[in-house]
């Protein structure tokens, strides 16, 4: 059944969480640029602080514009609620810091965004939280990495940089057998291409900076809870199942049977760590979400054409997109993603048969693709890891990381596909000349 009471994806992308403003009649979501909210009375103030009544107090904890974004993301993901954060990295940190402290252990995929890898491998380790990294397709490895203190499994829907598709049903089952939830970074797929909760994930986060906002204008993140993980049954999360002296001795799992994680994340994590989102950022991201499916369809269509072009070009070696049957995740992508392998997104890498100098020449010859360190923009983007993010590494060290001297990462935008292909064709010619 479809209709107002049971709306589809696009209707939720436009309406979830928002109604015409009751005071002004404004149809678009207003930007509530205010730090704080006036109490009706002393009793109202006390009730808000004690979670007897729900409402806004201070914009570090919550804000009406952010709340629209949060409800909308929860609706699109099929979750119970969400929390907007200052960035995708802040969302990951909020999830980790809410669930564990020193002495805890995480099992994570090796195929992660570099920032996530840094946070887990270096920074959280400094705070006593250890991480074991496992190749996403190594199912036995996920199981073998479990320790008595394992409190979280973590991976990306399609891993960075090779687009390894995470086998969420299998990995979530292993996590649940270990009494731990599965946290998934769904930034590159968005809820339009895959619904991780339907596959077994428990918590999802996004860098909203990327496809959700979609225009390269804003930094933001969001964490969404499925409400599916039973913290009490697990027995590993006193943070959620025992009285918390730092907040009225509240036992979050008694307050909410399904929402303990979000209660603590907002009441402790946003309160104490303070990595909140600006309402202006929330508004910008909402503008992007309103056209999410339209843009993602175009991203996918353009990507398919570019992948086909590159795969048939004589100067191109590997093309790392699951659209190709030779890709190790092709079958899993066909099985798990909403649009099959097309749904593996529009950020992928390919190898130029040549040297670092040729890779550099390719980049410098591009006219439409912008050379920068971001993905998920409406404009097409490119980066050459060997001459930028990984330029200090030897060719041998690059190879160990799955990166060649001619590896190029693309983020395919919304321009005319023919123009993108023409740009790539010209740049490949320049690379060829540089190797002559």
């Amino acid at each position, binding site marked *: 059944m479809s209709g107002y009471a*049971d709306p589809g994806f696009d209707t939720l992308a436009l309406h*979830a969480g928002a*109604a015409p403003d009751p005071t002004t009649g404004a149809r678009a979501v207003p930007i509530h640029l205010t730090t704080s909210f006036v109490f009706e009375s002393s009793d109202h103030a006390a009730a808000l602080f*004690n979670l007897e*009544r729900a409402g806004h107090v201070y914009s570090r904890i919550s804000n009406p514009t952010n709340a629209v974004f949060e409800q909308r993301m*929860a609706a699109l993901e*099929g979750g119970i609620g969400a929390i907007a954060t200052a960035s995708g990295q802040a969302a990951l940190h909020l999830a980790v810091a809410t669930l564990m402290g020193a002495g805890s252990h995480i099992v994570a995929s090796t195929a992660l965004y570099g920032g996530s890898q840094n946070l887990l491998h270096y920074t959280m380790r400094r705070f006593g939280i250890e991480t074991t990294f496992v190749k996403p397709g190594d199912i036995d490895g996920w199981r073998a990495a479990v320790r008595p203190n394992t409190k979280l499994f973590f991976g990306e829907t399609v891993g960075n940089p090779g687009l390894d598709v995470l086998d969420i049903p299998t990995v979530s089952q292993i996590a649940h057998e270990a009494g731990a939830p599965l946290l998934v970074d769904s930034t590159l797929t968005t809820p339009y291409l895959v619904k991780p909760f339907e596959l077994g994930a428990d918590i999802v986060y996004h860098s909203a900076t990327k496809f959700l906002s979609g225009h390269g204008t804003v930094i933001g993140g969001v964490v969404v809870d499925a409400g*599916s993980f039973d913290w009490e049954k697990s027995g590993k999360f006193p943070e959620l199942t025992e009285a918390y002296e730092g907040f009225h001795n509240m036992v979050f799992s008694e307050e*909410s049977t*399904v929402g303990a994680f979000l209660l603590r994340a907002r009441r402790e994590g946003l309160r104490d760590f303070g990595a909140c989102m600006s309402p202006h950022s929330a508004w910008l991201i909402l503008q992007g979400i309103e056209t999410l499916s339209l843009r993602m369809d175009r991203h996918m269509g353009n990507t398919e054409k570019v992948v086909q072009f590159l795969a048939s070009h004589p100067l191109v070696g590997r093309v790392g997109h699951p659209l190709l049957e030779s890709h190790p995740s092709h079958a899993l992508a066909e099985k798990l993603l909403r649009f099959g392998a097309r749904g593996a997104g529009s950020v992928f890498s390919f190898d130029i048969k040549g040297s670092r100098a040729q890779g550099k020449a390719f980049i410098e010859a591009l006219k439409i693709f912008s050379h920068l360190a971001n993905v998920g923009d409406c404009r097409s983007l490119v980066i050459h890891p060997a001459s930028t993010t990984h330029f200090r590494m030897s060719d041998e060290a690059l190879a160990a990381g799955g990166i060649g001297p001619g590896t190029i990462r693309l983020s395919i935008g919304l321009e005319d596909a023919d123009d993108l292909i023409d740009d790539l064709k010209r740049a490949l010619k320049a690379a060829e000349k540089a190797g002559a």
Partner: protein
Amino acid sequence: MYLQVNGASTYCYTGGKPFDAAKPTVVFLHGVINDHSVWILQSRYLAHHGWNVLAVDLPGHCKSEGEAPASVEDAANFVAALLDAAGVQKAALVGHSWGSLIALESAARLKERVSHLVLVGTAYPMKVSPALIEASLNEPEKALTMVNVFSRSTLAAPPSALGPGTWVYGSSMALGRRVLRSNAKVNVFHRGFVACDRYAGGEAAIAQITCPVLFVLGGLDQMTNPKAAQPLVQAARAAGKAVSIATLPVGHHQMTETPDATLFAIRDFLNR
């Protein structure tokens, strides 16, 4: 806190305050495929404003052990035993949907032991469509979707049970799945719906209550349409009971889609 009721461990949320027998007590009774947490805002507020709160997980639901009630009458027996176990002589009863029928039947049996009766999202008879009853047994996920689609009245609820950013529809779906999973022996979804459908004692019960009654109805409620509460309202008036009615602009998720209005209606009635 946990009480032993009829030999079974029974969970009662007390609103973040310790139980104090010296205070007046209000018992919250949830509906089918719900638990105590649907009352979290209203119960926590009242617990911090002079009331003892016992927001119970019915037997066989979530944190409570025991046999899940197979009828409204069974559940009313449980409520009487709950008050005895808590050492509560007199209490206000607040019920939602199926819980409203349980509260009504309990009030009829307990008479002067009940100080106030609040029926939220009620109807009598509370007939459940055969298709929904069948789906609750054989396709519970489909039935859960139907229930929550029928219950929803807005895509933009105000800050709710989890604070701002709560997606009420998703919360209710997740809670339903959790409640269903909590009982491996009995499908409490189906059993609860059958109990609602078969209850035939409503008019007799409302004639026997000795306390004032408040109806909190959802003007947009498709699960228990406000018109379907009229037989009970009329029976109560015909029997000379003190009847109050609060009709809110909401569907069947009264406590989460209009948390403040629901709270104020209950609070003001209890404080009369």
